């Protein structure tokens, strides 16, 4: 099954896909922005500041999703010695870090009108900050170590250590008394968010997911060309 993940097989797709993903991203983002900034209603408590949710929450979801995927890919890649999985994981990391920073900064901006402070060392915010440190460490490993085998090993260890933090982020609002509100959207039980707010949130999440896919494809293609550059040197 893993032979289908060979770079030679999928480069013909990944090299053509970015332009289509980009067009789709622009369309979905435009709809999402109109919904988020104009059509969606204000909150009865938070007024218009609730609109920050439409960038803050998707960014947080996607950074957590990317880190979880990176861990899974690194572990499988390490066990089965699939180099391509490390390339995919490495190509995902940059957008994961940027989404993490967006979640932290927009959360901080949202905190000022809602809590009266830009920052609080509460469990959710601190654990998100720790996640960004894991992203930075992961990216630094690929910069520091030129030996791929060593980089594979150390980056896998970082993702395995970092994944411990992911359930802490998710459940921090339930386990501790935090300023951060508890989850409004649940897959297994009824969500407490109104459909008029859920719709822009879903559209913006789709737009952010498309953007991360776009960056991933561009990064992945760059990594493949780098490998091919080395291949030309050996000819």
């Amino acid at each position, binding site marked *: 099954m893993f032979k289908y993940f060979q*770079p*030679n097989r999928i*480069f*013909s797709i990944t*090299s*053509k896909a*970015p*332009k289509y993903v*980009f067009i789709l991203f622009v369309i979905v983002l435009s709809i999402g*922005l109109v919904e988020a*900034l*104009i059509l969606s209603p*204000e909150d009865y408590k938070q*007024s*218009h*500041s609730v*609109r*920050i949710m439409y*960038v*803050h929450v998707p*960014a947080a979801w996607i950074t957590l999703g990317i880190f979880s995927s990176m861990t899974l890919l690194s572990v499988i890649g390490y066990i089965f010695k699939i180099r391509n999985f490390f390339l995919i994981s490495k190509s995902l990391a*940059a*957008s994961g870090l*940027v989404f993490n*920073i*967006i979640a932290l*900064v*927009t959360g901080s*901006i*949202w905190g*000022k*009108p809602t809590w009266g402070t830009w920052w609080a060392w509460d469990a959710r915010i601190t654990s998100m900050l720790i996640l960004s440190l894991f992203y930075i460490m992961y990216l630094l490993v690929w910069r520091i170590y030129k030996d791929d085998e060593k980089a594979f090993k150390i980056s896998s260890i970082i993702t395995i250590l970092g994944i411990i933090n992911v359930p802490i982020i998710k459940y921090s609002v339930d386990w501790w008394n935090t300023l951060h509100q508890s989850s409004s959207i649940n897959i297994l039980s009824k969500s407490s968010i109104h459909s008029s707010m859920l719709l822009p949130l879903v559209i913006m999440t789709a737009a952010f997911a498309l*953007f991360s896919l*776009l*960056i991933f494809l*561009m*990064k992945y*293609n*760059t990594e*493949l*060309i*780098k490998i*091919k*550059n080395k*291949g*030309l*040197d050996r*000819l």
Partner: protein
Amino acid sequence: MINEILFMDGYGIYVWSAFIFTCLSFTSLYTITKIQYTREKKKFIAKFGTLESEKAAFAKSQTINKEILSNPSGI
């Protein structure tokens, strides 16, 4: 209408700064990624140009190399 969207009952500064920060982050990440891609591709094309005809023919027989050379922009 325009004033309402801009000022949002005094919350406009927070809402717009959050959206503008996100937009700037997206633009920066996209630009950096695009520059890295273009740089690697230029390097590949330059190296390919210096290959002897026999080696170039061999390299061109690989599908992935053909794809890199035929795909002008990457996006």
